[in-house]
């Protein structure tokens, strides 16, 4: 399972990579911001998009809108990660076409499982 992860905070990128690779058994490709992600998006074939919401430059939802314009990215399940926790905000994120929202701070031991469950509930 390949995860396409965009997150501007280097420490959180590192924690997420260790959590997803060592505990979750995923393969993770990481990008610091939307520009870096878009530069490789044409060649990338991920199984899931994991996008931080608040980033300098393009936000997660804006990046997702750009990615969706590409045929091969149009239907890849997307999950947001955010420190914004208002219930209305979570609903708004889901309306932009994400299968789920992971709240920061996340639990590194169960992060992979959380993503798997979101993908399964989408498939069901």
């Amino acid at each position, binding site marked *: 399972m390949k995860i396409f992860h965009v997150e501007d905070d280097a420490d959180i990128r590192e924690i997420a990579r*260790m959590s997803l690779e060592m505990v979750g058994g995923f393969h993770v490709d990481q990008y610091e911001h939307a520009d870096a992600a878009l530069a490789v998006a044409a060649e990338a074939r991920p199984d899931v998009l994991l996008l931080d919401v608040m980033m300098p430059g393009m936000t997660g939802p804006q990046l997702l809108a750009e990615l969706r314009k590409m045929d091969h990215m149009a239907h890849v399940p997307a999950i947001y990660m955010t*420190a*914004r*926790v208002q219930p209305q905000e979570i609903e708004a994120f889901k309306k932009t076409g994400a299968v789920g929202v992971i709240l*920061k*701070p996340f*639990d590194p031991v169960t992060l992979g499982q959380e993503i798997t469950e979101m993908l399964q509930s989408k498939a069901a």
Partner: protein
Amino acid sequence: MQEAWTILDRQPDPVLVFDGQTHAVRFQNRAAARLAGQSAAAGVPLADLCGWLRMSAAKVATLLETMDAESAPKHLEVSHCDAHFDVTVQLPGLSGFPDQIVAAFHDITERRNAERQKQELVSTVSHELRSPLTAIKGAMGLVLAGSAGALPERARDMVQIAHRNANRLILIINDILDLDKIADGAMVFDNAHTPLVEVIDAAVEAVAGYRQRFDVKADLVIEARDAVAFIDPNRLVQVLVNLLSNAIKFSPAGAAVTVRLQDNGAFNRISVTDRGEGIPASEQRFLFDRFVQIGTRNRAATGGTGLGLSIVQAILDKQNGHITFTSQVGVGTTFHVDLPKPDAVPDSDIPKAG
């Protein structure tokens, strides 16, 4: 008497004077005229009372309906464009003008703006704290999960302490955001006619893990099985979970906490009783203050934030509810949550969502 009118006319705050009988506006001072964009000369005809002041006058008249000769001065808040006013309404006799009611408009725009800025700061800081906390909690969680290999026992103990306190910090931030949302009016209350038995069951169920951890049972005493309140069920569950967690935390192992539902005439009462140490009389009046934790127990060990009861009180305030408690050292503490019966709440008092 003429002197008094002159003083009133030269008051820096806008003032309206109402007829004590008809509640019609009799006089506006220079500041009120200026506020309305009229010439500051005295004696502006009242027919020219600008739309905004006329609306405020209508609100004052509504307030007057709730007052009688014995009432102390009452306050009401009105806003116009970006300006906010605290209006003090004084009855005849109190105001020094027989048969006249005086409404003085005090500009509180700066205070309101400062409050808003404070709330924005709280919200921003709380959100900004989450990113570093994500990294801290994540790194320690991975170490504890063995991702960096086996740890010596003492190192593991220390990382566990750090991890537990990172979690506590997150709870405090969540509580601060909750309090901020309530103060800001941003907390949404989804009110519905709610059977209170259901709320109690949900709350008791929600603390099942907690009861097990502290080896404390929950006894239910339902004396008003059909009791209903017009409230947001999720917020009331939040209130009861808070009270139950406290009760469980402060009860000795093997004890039971009691949840009682009673019809108390004008209102329904939910009580949560613990068999804890009780709250000394000297500390009782601080109980609902922010960041107050009673007793000698270690804060980290109880896992509390010191904000729980402030949140409980703020939520109940918004729901027309009321919380009180009785406590006896060595016996225990009982919290009473009083909720108005649905027909006892005037429509205008029901908080709207948002």
